[in-house]
């Protein structure tokens, strides 16, 4: 794909140079710190042991996946598309020897990298915090579970980010896309609770599907079905997003 490598490196540099990445890192550290303070307070105040060292990252993940991670994925996706269109900088990328598919793929791949890097960062800090405050309960199988959980969480969050990318290419205003994304996120979670029979089809209700991966009796059929649903949603959202991006007049 001509020009893809250049577009990919450029998107990475633009992402790294923005303050959003620092904000995401700081908020991620705060999330881990608040979690650790709560766990320590309960332990010392009530004498209850809430979590062990390798269980702590899973507690952090359950909160992080539903709050900071999708929020920053929305910010980055909007910035990459609506932000560049509104600041007129999209044209300086598009008027280069690179196909629109190359530019779109480079942006989406960077969005995926951002989500993966954010998860990896939080996992490392949460693991370190767990080891420092509860060193006695560390185990290799616990670490494997943590890694597996964080890796599995990437996929539904990425598919949700693809939905935001699609919205970014439908609506011109970044603020409108932001609010619509939040509404969709809340709506999906609400539908997932009220119509629980259909929740498997919503990517937001798969944000905690890592529990399937680490349960003692893994339901292979259910995991396989969820993978296929995520994959199908991902392909459809990517294709629809690209279709609109390709037809856009700058």
């Amino acid at each position, binding site marked *: 794909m001509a020009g893809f490598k250049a577009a990919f490196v*450029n998107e990475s540099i633009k992402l790294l140079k923005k303050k959003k990445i620092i904000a995401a890192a700081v908020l991620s550290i705060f999330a881990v710190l608040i979690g650790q303070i709560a766990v320590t307070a309960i332990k010392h105040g009530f004498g209850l042991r809430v979590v062990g060292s390798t269980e702590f990252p899973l507690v952090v993940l359950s909160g992080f996946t539903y709050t900071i991670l999708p929020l920053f994925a929305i910010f980055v996706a909007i910035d990459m598309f609506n932000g560049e269109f509104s600041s007129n900088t999209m044209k300086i990328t598009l008027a280069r020897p690179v196909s629109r598919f190359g530019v779109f793929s480079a942006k989406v791949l960077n969005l995926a990298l951002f989500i993966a890097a954010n998860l990896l960062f939080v996992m490392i800090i949460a693991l370190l915090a767990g080891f420092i405050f509860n060193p006695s309960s560390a185990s290799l199988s616990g670490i494997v579970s943590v890694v597996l959980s964080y890796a599995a969480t990437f996929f539904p969050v990425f598919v949700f980010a693809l939905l935001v990318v699609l919205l970014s290419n439908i609506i011109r205003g970044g603020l409108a896309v932001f609010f619509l994304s939040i509404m969709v996120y809340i709506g999906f979670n609400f539908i997932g609770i009220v119509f629980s029979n259909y929740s498997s089809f919503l990517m937001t209700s798969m944000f905690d599907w890592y529990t399937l991966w680490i349960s003692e009796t893994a339901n292979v059929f259910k995991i396989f079905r969820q993978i296929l649903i995520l994959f199908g949603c991902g392909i459809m959202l990517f294709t629809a997003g690209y279709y609109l991006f390709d037809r856009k007049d700058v």
Partner: protein
Amino acid sequence: MTNKAIEITDLAKVYTNGRGISDLNLVVDQGDIFGFLGPNGAGKTTAMKMMTGLMKPDRGDVKIFGASITEDYVNAMKHVGCIIETAESYPYLTANENLKLFARYYPGVDQRRIDECLQITGMLKYKNEKSKKFSLGMKQRLGVAAAILSKPKLLILDEPLNGLDVEGMLDMRKMIKRLAEEGTTFFISSHLIHDVELTCTRIGVVYGGKLVNVEYTRNILTNYSSLENYFVSEVDRNGRV
């Protein structure tokens, strides 16, 4: 190998408000400095956006050095540098970092060439300043540096003198002349008719979304006292009161 730098066939794009451009047929030969003149809203920028693939035409095609912009975009844009509508840059990056981003699309462009372009446009001393602090003229100069970075065979410049001071305008005119002597083809739109007269070798007048006439500058100046008189005459002839 074709000697046509740009070949526009039956190009059309009409907006919902009825403005735009239609039935645009034009050939720009290699080595031409083509001036694209027309009043506000005549369709100049729309045509240039379609020529650079930023806008999809309703119908028609543009070929750049034989490669179709709609079917073979990457090859068509390989030898093109452009400024469309406004010279933009990433405000959170320095002038040097901005040019480094663009350089990645062209295999032969290194730091030396980046410095050379900054030198040509008088931006070398601001190399490490973020472009959000730049004035309109400085942004324009950076835009020109980005356009000439890959030593393109064709430069499409929409209002290249926008925001430039007198010194900048003179520098720009000299640069266009020098690059044209080296074989670069230019497609320039400008409101500064005197500057077009001094720079361009061929003129196309667009009015009401149609290309009304194309003529060599020397022929125009044989029949009219200035390009301005020719332009006014063409616009009047095509219905402007």
